[in-house]
């Protein structure tokens, strides 16, 4: 496995080997799927849309529908106006969504298609039926990563839709959950409801990418943020963005457009990050934290104390998206582990600086890749690897425990059903991590040392 990887590290300037990120449009597609009756549309050649749908489908084991402008060489030379207009005509006639969220690809970005102009012309020519909405986000794949695309799509929803309609803001907050799984979104909503806060969540893939099997297929499941809610976000008194990389573009745009102030928190992964989120909800709602939640928190802390001996000082290599890493690394420190290698593929000098402050002795890199990570691991061994499915190759090569975390997870099913956020999510993380350690021992210990109890 990965037999060509050696411990000798050469700085590379031009070659990316085993990326720890992917491109913007898949993030945009994911964000758009979290809007009720929304058709994500990929403006470019059809391979992008096929790849994004495949990866999202493999991750969530759910239908992921999206349309494409199906560029061939002609459109690439003469521009995509005709293709997008034809596409909109077909989409509204055949699939009847309430809203189409267009995102660009490398191709349409390089040829410089003016999407707002095309949308305007399509409204004028009647290709967009009355009462229907088309919005767009620029998501060039040669900048940022899938998280940037997610952020840009959210920003586009705000810019196109959110409105400030009342003098005095309503007693509602906006929750921007960040690029997390449907199970996480559901948990974030549950926490907000428990604390007793009225909220609008944007966007929300729960009940969209985990819809029930009842023998019928619905192109637009009941879930997702409604267009009316996206509009109403302008009347809320506060936005909470979970993770700056995934949400700041949207929350900032909303502040600028509708004068809704925002607070950026970490994704609620682990004890302190969840505490901060719960506390922010409490303050925003002027409520108190219910006993039920206190108990959940207590059960988590209890589990950490029970398992502390197996986690203490264990070295971890971790890769993923910046916002995921922010919280996850803090959690690992909380439970006594030692994050030794932390990398993200997403560019971000500021993120890198902040992470280095937190972990002065670790290898920390933004805009890096898994090949470097693997080489650092060969030089300084770690006890555990945490990351998305692709980390499996490295974990196998080094025969170390591996916990799947982040996006995409193509080869396991649980992540879409069980959250990693909140106190229960943290308990699940403890379970995953300790089970990995114990499983390895059970597998590898000689018979005379194999134990049944601990």
């Amino acid at each position, binding site marked *: *496995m*990965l*037999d*060509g990887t050696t411990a000798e590290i050469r700085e*590379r*300037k*031009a*070659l*990316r*080997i*085993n*990326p720890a*990120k*992917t*491109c*913007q449009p898949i993030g945009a597609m994911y964000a758009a799927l979290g809007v009720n009756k929304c058709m994500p*549309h990929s403006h470019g*050649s*059809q*391979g*992008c849309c*096929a*790849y994004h*749908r*495949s*990866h999202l*489908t*493999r991750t969530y084991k*759910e*239908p992921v*529908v999206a*349309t*494409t*402008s*199906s560029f*061939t*060489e*002609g459109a*690439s030379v003469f521009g995509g106006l005709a293709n*997008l207009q*034809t*596409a909109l*005509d*077909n*989409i509204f*006639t*055949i*699939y009847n969504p309430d809203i189409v969220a267009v995102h660009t690809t*490398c*191709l349409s970005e*390089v040829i410089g298609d003016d999407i707002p102009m095309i949308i305007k012309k399509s409204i004028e020519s009647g290709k967009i039926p009355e009462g229907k909405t088309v919005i767009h986000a620029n998501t*060039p794949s*040669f*900048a940022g990563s899938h998280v940037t695309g997610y952020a840009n799509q959210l920003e586009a929803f705000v810019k196109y839709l959110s409105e400030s309609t009342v003098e005095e803001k309503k007693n509602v907050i906006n929750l921007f959950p960040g690029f997390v799984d449907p199970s996480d979104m559901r948990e974030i909503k549950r926490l907000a409801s428990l604390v007793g806060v009225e909220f609008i969540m944007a966007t929300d893939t729960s009940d969209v990418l985990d819809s029930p*099997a*009842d*023998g*019928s*297929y*619905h192109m637009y499941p009941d879930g997702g943020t409604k267009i009316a809610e996206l509009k109403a976000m302008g009347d809320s008194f506060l936005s909470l963005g979970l993770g700056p990389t995934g949400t700041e573009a949207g929350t900032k745009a909303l502040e600028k457009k509708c004068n809704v102030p925002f607070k950026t928190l970490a994704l609620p992964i682990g004890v302190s990050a969840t505490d901060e989120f719960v506390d922010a909800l409490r303050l925003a709602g002027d409520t108190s934290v219910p006993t039920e939640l206190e108990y959940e928190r207590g059960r988590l802390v209890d589990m950490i104390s029970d398992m502390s001996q197996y986690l203490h000082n264990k070295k971890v290599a971790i890769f993923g998206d910046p916002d995921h890493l922010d919280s996850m690394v803090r959690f690992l420190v909380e439970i006594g582990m030692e994050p030794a290698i932390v990398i993200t593929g997403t560019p971000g000098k500021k993120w890198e600086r902040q992470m280095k402050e937190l972990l002065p002795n670790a290898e920390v890199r933004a805009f890096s890749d898994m090949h470097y990570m693997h080489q650092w691991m060969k030089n300084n061994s770690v006890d555990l690897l945490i990351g998305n499915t692709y980390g499996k190759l490295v974990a196998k090569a080094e025969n170390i425990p591996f916990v799947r975390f982040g996006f995409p997870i193509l080869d396991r099913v649980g992540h879409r059903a069980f959250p990693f956020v909140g106190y229960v999510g943290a308990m699940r993380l403890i379970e995953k991590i300790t089970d990995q350690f114990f499983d390895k021992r059970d597998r590898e210990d000689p018979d005379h040392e194999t134990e049944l109890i601990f």
Partner: protein
Amino acid sequence: MGPHGPSAAEAREKMLEAYPRKTQRKRGKQMLVNESPSTPAEIGANSRTVPGIITQRGCSYAGCKGVVIGPIYDILHITHGPIGCGFYSWLSRRNMTKIRAEGETNYLQYSMSTDMQEDHIVFGGEKQLAQAIQEAYDEFKPKAISVYATCPVGLIGDDIHSVCRTMKEKLGINIFGFSCEGYKGVSQSAGHHIANNGVFKHMIGLDDSPVEHKYKINILGEYNIGGDAWEIDRIFARCGIKIIGTLSGGVSYGDICNCHMADLNVVMCHRSINYMAEMMETKFGIPWFKVNFIGLEGTKKSLRKIAQYFGDKELIDKVEEVIAAEMAEVRPIINDVKTRTTGKTAALFVGGSRAHHYQDLFEDMDMKVIAAGYEFAHRDDYEGRDVLPNIKIDADSRNIEELEVEADPERFNLRKTVDRKKSLEDSGFSFSDYEGMMRQMKKDTLVIDDISHHELEKLIEFYKPDVIGSGIKDKYVIEKMGVPCKQLHSYDYGGPYAGFKGAINFFKEIDRMTSTKVWKLTRAPWHAGAGESPASEEKVPATV
């Protein structure tokens, strides 16, 4: 397609109803009722997908890097472009691979890309590419490096071929590029053609080392998904036939450079590699014919045809012996499975050959294929190669290079295959053949090219097939409707399904899928219809 469901013609009409007029006209040409299988009607294939239609198609890059060249394990593959394309094609086609010798590296476990950033788009990416090739060489010292262009590379005009030539000279290893930008052509198919040209120009014929064996062949268009190629290897080894190269599943760069030493090419996936078979015949005189190792009958027929080609009694007998031995293992299983599968129905919408090949396996189980279509095929894949002279070349195809190939002055006919071919032809043996999918399909079945999401939904609504063979993008759409879906591009983590042992795997799999209880759980006991599967609720036995 019978007294209970609408007729195929009615179904077709109803599928088209929802479309705007222009789209109706376009899709109408791509949807046919197979009225006279022996003289297939003309189908609109290899034409553009209508923008806005939910299609299962991918792009030229996916066809070139993802399908044809990607599986060659000891070439170091570099995608020149922004990160997405390289990332998504990273081991996502399940091309199973074993390294052949100590110290080799399987580069398929790596995803390498120039990860182009905005400044490369503005100022050009050639320097970045040259540097990336150098870094890849320093890091891994591979035998060969291939470079794939993505959409923006073509638009900004990076000359990847000149960069490859320069670096080839500098590093002294084989380095070559593929202009397989995603917007080329109308689907993956364009990428297959581009890949074939590249393999032919840059690899085939580089190594003239003689191969000592009585029966030497190449298998073209077999990509070793789920280990299919290994099952074919096993059967061939048993028969005493030497495979020089399988293009391109589980194959090494060296095998490909040497594969012109074969006496025969047999073609599995016609769409993705028929160009190669033609070019190798023109240049080296190696004849080819179409085979199919999916399905018991297909496998037997293909083995017998190969034995007949070599014409050696020893081989002919050996093949019969192997078939008899293998069938002895298969027979009790298929007999048992058939008691549950006979009369059940299937529909297949897959790739550029599998929608045809897998009909053999369903026939083995006495199941009926009521509808089928390819994702990215051309007219010849549907109607047979005899329509080739009548296919109009449109603008999208014209942009794909056609290589001018000539007979190699020294190496053509090295193995005296030409005479052998002629005498066989005189006795009625067919070469360079493919009769197409429609001839094998039953009368009045539906043939749908580049099926759209909407048409698939309608098909299920009308006929509720017992199983659908398709891909990941529509798998869960189908299953939400209570119909099991077998992924026939990637096999759902399963396989092999080729050859005899593969057939056993497939029979068991379809038996499980069509008799699983899960669909009966979709309705809770407190609702009407509890305990019935949605697919069987209004069961309409399709009489085809």
